[in-house]
């Protein structure tokens, strides 16, 4: 029973962390930019969590202008590892993340918009580009992934190495191993000796109680004769 509860909680935790990582870590899309626009967005509902908090928005404004990049992207599956030839429209927001979460310190929204404008092309004469983005497109909640960088590429079959994620997961693994070593050391050198002290004290109490009980039963036996 306890084991089932433990496993369920761990599974829920793993799913939550995985979903947060999928939202937050950068992914790459091969795209063809078809347009850019700027539109005022109301930011008062709970879907506020799908928008950034750049510094110029003090947190009190109910709405502000957001820039967008309209593209056609190569469809991807399995966290972007498998890319197909099919295309589908994708719209990115282009917002500063500033000093807030996620910590990418993006301040070059205006520059990125100019770069995207420069890469605009048509279906007949496509110019391909790789967009680095985080976040999801959820049409129901009007959520857009945030574009962080764009670079032109020769062909849509470009090989993309996710350096950031490689370094990130290597750091996470190193951190987990280090924390484990720290915990083992702490348990061996600090917790176990303390427990042993408690056990020693308890054994003394126990031995004393045994002795007292022995005396009482001997006295009792001296009366009953058994």
């Amino acid at each position, binding site marked *: 029973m306890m084991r089932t509860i433990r496993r369920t909680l761990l599974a829920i935790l793993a799913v939550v962390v995985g979903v947060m990582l999928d939202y937050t870590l950068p992914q790459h899309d091969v795209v063809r930019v078809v347009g850019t626009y700027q539109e005022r967005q109301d930011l008062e509902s709970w879907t506020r969590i799908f928008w950034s*908090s750049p*510094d110029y928005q*003090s947190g009190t404004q109910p709405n502000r202008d957001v820039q967008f990049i309209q593209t056609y992207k190569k469809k991807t599956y399995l966290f972007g590892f498998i890319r197909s030839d099919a295309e589908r429209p994708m719209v990115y927001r282009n917002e500063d993340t*500033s*000093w*807030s979460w996620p*910590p*990418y*310190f*993006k*301040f*070059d929204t205006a*520059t990125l918009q100019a770069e995207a404008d420069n890469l605009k092309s048509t279906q007949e004469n496509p110019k391909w580009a790789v967009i680095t983005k985080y976040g999801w497109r959820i049409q129901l909640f009007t959520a857009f992934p945030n574009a*962080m*960088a764009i670079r032109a590429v020769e062909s849509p079959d470009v090989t993309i190495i996710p350096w950031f994620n490689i370094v990130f997961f290597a750091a996470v693994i190193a951190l987990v191993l280090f924390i484990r*070593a*720290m915990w083992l*050391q*702490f348990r061996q*050198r*600090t917790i176990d000796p303390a427990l042993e002290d408690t056990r020693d004290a308890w054994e003394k109490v126990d031995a004393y109680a045994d002795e007292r009980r022995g005396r009482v039963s001997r006295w009792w036996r001296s009366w009953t004769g058994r």
Partner: protein
Amino acid sequence: MAFVRLIVFGFLFLSVIYLAVSFYSRSVRREKLENHWAEDHPGDTDSIERDAYIEAGMQAYRKGFRRKLIVLVYIIPAIAAAALFFLIN
């Protein structure tokens, strides 16, 4: 404002890590000294000489360079953030 928040919470978070790492490092050093003594003096687990040896070793550790390396706990994240800043922008 967000910058101040980042600095303050980042500093607090890294300070917790700093304290944990220095506690761990001290513990590992003490264990090493104990093992070293046990190798040279089998059977001796509780003598004045042993205590003096371990105290001297810990004193040397406190003044040593290795302990100062723990400051990297602050420096590496700062460098990573700066690198990210220049790569993104």
